[in-house]
């Protein structure tokens, strides 16, 4: 993994703000060279008893300072934008990989959303910090070269001796590299554990309350935050140690200059003006090795971050975290698009279904559970019911069929009209197939947006609401289909959530509808209305159900026992 090349691609995502910010910073760092030289000349005048001369130098310095601040004002605004652009690219690539329906972009799905959030937040920031560090290094380099030229013209020996402590800083940082990386990832793991538990706890607040489990949860939390304190302290002390060392190096450098130039100072050839230039530059001179040290440390952290992020993207290929894509987030970019909104959802082309054939489908989980060699045929317009005891593999069968059984080892094939479907996750999406998971998840948005997900017409949404037997419920709500349903749809009842999610699956009139256990959240009358409506619409349906009203209407019933068809 080449962190440099990856960071370069991140920086060039939005080159305009990057280079504008970069130029601002580099220009900003040339001013101290001028100002230090002015201070030196001022003290020369002062020590030779020419106060008038010194006043003039002081005045020029004021002008230079104003210019310096104007430069950084421009640079900082530009850089803030570059900073957000860079992280947005990384986050967008992670999110796209996590949400892609198959295809080359799809990554391995993560387990806990709370823990995954650290990749989007901290890892993306770590990479941006590295690029930020490199900009500091290049600005520091410009200053150092110019300053070395001025100082060398004063006293070559004293200038040369400065290389000693400043070089030491870079060497010390290098030596601590592996440790920085180790401490860093330990700290990250500890942070992920804390936010993971916090996420679980916040999602289950009511459960914890009604089970009177606050005290033990707090005890667990206490253990985790305590551990994180240890990892954070180690990480920070090392970080600050490197920084203190480089700052100390500047002071040591000045001491060495005094030592080397002691005879010149005694002889009067190294005057107070010269000393003033050295002193004025010294604080800035330590900037470069400090930034080099920091950039090296950040390179390590960025390496850790890229490694962790690569777990979320396609083929775990780290290059996929920096794939270029259009992300118009700044007002200027949005203006350039002239109100043209990006495509909300490109539906795959509809391929009318005549017959679906499942052939020797197997999906084995590492734990040994799963399904074994399942074969069946579904004709257009038929109703297939999947049933069986708990943990028989009903959900696994549906997910394997759809290409969603990611953690399992999959084999077997699925034929759509006698043609083998190569990438099932990519092909079996609306309008070809739609899926209702056992515990559907909704998003804090309106009812309409949850169903349309960007691409449906109003009449399609209304029709699907009625077909899912939830139209009347929605009509009763004050804002109708524009009702905001709250985080994870919690403002709806459990049954309403299930039926809104059913409407979401129906909205594009899929060729094949796959429902995982819709009946658990529905009463008998509602379920009956649903099956009747789907049959009238001529839908091809595969559904998990335990109810006789479903068996009665089924064209075939697949009974699973311990992962096999009975």
């Amino acid at each position: 993994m080449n962190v440099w090349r990856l960071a370069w691609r991140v920086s060039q995502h939005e080159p305009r703000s990057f280079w504008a910010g970069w130029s601002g910073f580099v220009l900003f760092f040339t001013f101290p060279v001028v100002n230090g030289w002015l201070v030196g000349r001022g003290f020369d005048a002062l020590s030779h008893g020419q106060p008038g001369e010194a006043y003039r130098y002081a005045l020029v310095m004021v002008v230079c300072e104003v210019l310096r601040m104007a430069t950084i004002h421009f640079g900082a605004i530009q850089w803030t934008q570059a900073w957000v652009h860079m992280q947005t690219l990384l986050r967008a690539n992670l999110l796209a990989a996590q949400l892609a329906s198959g295809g080359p972009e799809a990554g391995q799905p993560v387990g806990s959303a709370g823990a995954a959030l650290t990749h989007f937040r901290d890892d993306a920031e770590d990479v941006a910090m590295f690029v930020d560090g490199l900009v500091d290094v290049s600005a520091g380099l410009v200053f150092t070269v110019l300053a070395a030229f001025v100082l060398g013209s004063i006293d070559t020996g004293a200038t040369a001796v400065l290389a000693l402590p400043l070089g030491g800083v870079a060497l010390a940082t290098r030596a601590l590299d592996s440790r920085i990386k180790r401490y860093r990832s330990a700290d990250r793991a500890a942070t992920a554990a804390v936010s993971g538990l916090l996420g679980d706890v916040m999602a289950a607040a009511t459960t914890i309350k009604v089970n009177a489990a606050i005290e033990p949860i707090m005890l667990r939390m206490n253990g985790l935050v305590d551990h994180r304190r240890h990892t954070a302290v180690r990480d920070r002390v090392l970080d600050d140690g490197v920084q203190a060392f480089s700052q100390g190096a500047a002071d040591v450098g000045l001491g060495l200059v005094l030592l080397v130039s002691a005879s010149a100072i005694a002889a009067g050839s190294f005057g107070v003006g010269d000393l003033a230039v050295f002193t004025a530059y010294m604080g800035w001179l330590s900037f470069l090795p400090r930034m080099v040290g920091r950039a090296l440390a950040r390179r390590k952290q960025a390496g850790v971050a890229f490694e962790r992020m690569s777990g979320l993207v396609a083929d775990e290929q780290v290059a996929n975290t920096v794939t270029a894509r259009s992300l118009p987030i700044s007002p200027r970019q949005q203006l350039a698009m002239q109100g043209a909104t990006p495509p909300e959802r490109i539906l795959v082309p509809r391929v009318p279904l005549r017959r679906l054939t499942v052939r020797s489908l197997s999906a084995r989980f590492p734990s040994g559970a799963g399904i074994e060699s399942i074969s069946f045929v579904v004709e257009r317009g038929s109703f297939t019911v999947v049933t069986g005891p708990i943990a028989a593999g009903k959900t696994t069968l549906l997910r394997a069929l759809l290409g969603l059984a990611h953690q399992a080892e999959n084999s077997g094939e699925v034929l759509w009209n006698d043609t083998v479907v190569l990438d099932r996750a990519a092909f079996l999406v609306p309008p070809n197939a739609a899926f209702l998971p056992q515990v559907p998840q909704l998003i804090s948005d309106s009812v309409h947006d949850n169903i349309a997900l960007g691409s449906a017409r109003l009449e399609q949404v209304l029709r699907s609401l009625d077909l899912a037997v939830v139209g009347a419920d929605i009509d009763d709500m004050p804002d109708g289909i524009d009702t905001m349903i709250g985080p994870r749809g919690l403002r709806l009842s459990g049954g309403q959530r299930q039926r809104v999610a059913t409407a979401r699956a129906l909205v594009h009139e899929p060729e094949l509808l796959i429902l995982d256990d819709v009946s658990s959240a529905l009463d008998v009358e509602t379920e009956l209305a649903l099956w009747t409506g789907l049959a009238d619409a001529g839908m091809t349906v595969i559904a998990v159900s335990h109810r006789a009203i479903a068996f009665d209407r089924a064209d075939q019933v697949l009974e699973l026992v311990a992962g096999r068809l009975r």
Partner: protein
Amino acid sequence: MDTRSPARWRALMALVRPDAARWAALSALLAASSALSLAGPLVIRQVVDRARTGATTAALANLAVVYLLIAAATGVIAVIVAWAATITAWRTTNQIRLRMTRHVLGLDHEFHRRHTPGELIQRVDGDVTSVSDFLGRVVPRAVGAGFLVVGMLIVLAVLDLGLALGAFAYVLLAVAVVVRGRHRAVTEASDEMGSYARLYGGIEERLTAAEDLRANGAGAHALNRFVEESGQALHSSVRRERAFLRMWWAVQGSVAAGVSVSLAVGAALVAADAISVGTAFLLLQYVLLLGRPLEDIVQQLETVQKANGAMVRVIDLLGVQPAIADHGTIAPPSGPLSVNFDHIWFSYGDDHPVLQNIDLHIAAGRSVGIVGRTGSGKTTASRLILRLVEATEGTLSLGGVPIADIPLDELRRRVALIPQEVELFAGTVRDNVTLFDDEPSDDEVAAALRLAGLSTLVDGGIHRPLGPGGAGVSAGEAQLLALARVWLRRPDLVVLDEATARIDPGTEALLDHAVAQLMRGRTTLIIAHRLSTLRRVDEIIVFDHGRVVEQGDRDELAGSDGSRFHRLLELALDEDVAS
């Protein structure tokens, strides 16, 4: 905003107080570090003045060595300060984290319906980490700078009183300018934190719904929403940066002015023979020395702003009071609890009453099945019994005691809920049953799991980790696990809200025994769509559109031709045959 500032400080001080001794020790270290920083320039002053009066090379070299030693010591102390500051800041803020977690857990069901877990993570952990950065990084530097200023004024006063007074005026002016600028940026920083909380909250929610979005081919749609939210984050970041730059101008301006003025003043005083060239040089060095922590703080002001915004939000969150007040003092009689709804009305804050004039009496120890279409108010009734929400009108009593008069601890101990959707935790099987309680023995946990029909989990070992998000456990098994949770607690009143809905009929038959055991010696309310679940209950209550439309003995209702329950049974008749 200004009026809230004292409150913010008081709150911060209250949080810091328990670790006062550590913070004091840290201050002593900072004082030593500042003294060393001031000593270095004094050595250089000697070099300048002695060189002008013809000192030997050896004497100057000796001074250089002293300077080197001081520089080395300064570095060592800086590392010790970082260590002490970080450890103390985390100790203090971990207490805040725990306090906030506890506080948020104590908030109402309504609060949790309105806030995503991602947002709450950001507020409990993200915001507090900003406060931690402030305490661990900014405060030590600010205190160090304070010591530096005081020490500097003392040194200058010894050399020349006028110089000290001038420097004092300069420092006051610089500080005044910085403080004025600081307040202006608080709102922007708070807005920025808010828009990032929304950004991350949105990402978290979409990851949770990832399978749904993938299966629906809605990745592009979700990504567009993310781009929109990122655009808002960018906008707020730029606004915050502009506010930050305004005060940066102020601080940088004062440092630059300080350098120019010190040169001019030094030149005037040297020309007037009031001070030596060395002292003029000392003045320049001290101004530069002041510039370093000042510039540091300028960089850290970003952290200050963030922390300030975060502190506002921390205080706001801690200020949110649950509507459900815990003022009760009466414990209902021991044993199974009766349930009494006395003309109860309920609405979720709009004009649509979810429950209308519910009048119910359930005797202690009875088992009652509650049926009705989705949205008829069954779940709301169960929330009322657990006091997750409070009736808009009317009184609910348990064991004859109005629910508001029962201490919440007592209520939670005696009443249990088995919900339709079971949340699992990243942890072991055991952790998920006991909810991290160490008290129940492994045998008790295993027994509870077996009773709930989860022998396979026990056989695999209860100390195995359960995957996050529940990988390895189906939704049906999760419901059984919730049954085991409640079994361990032995409550006096149990509410099962569609608690077996995701369990297939075969498993449910096995579970009949477990539920029957659970019913024994306690009052049991079973909300169910599947009528087969209700074969063993004593009574049936039928809800419709927020009203009780039927209540009576199960067998009588089942046998009576005109009853709604009878009609529902007929509809589901073939189902009973199937199971």
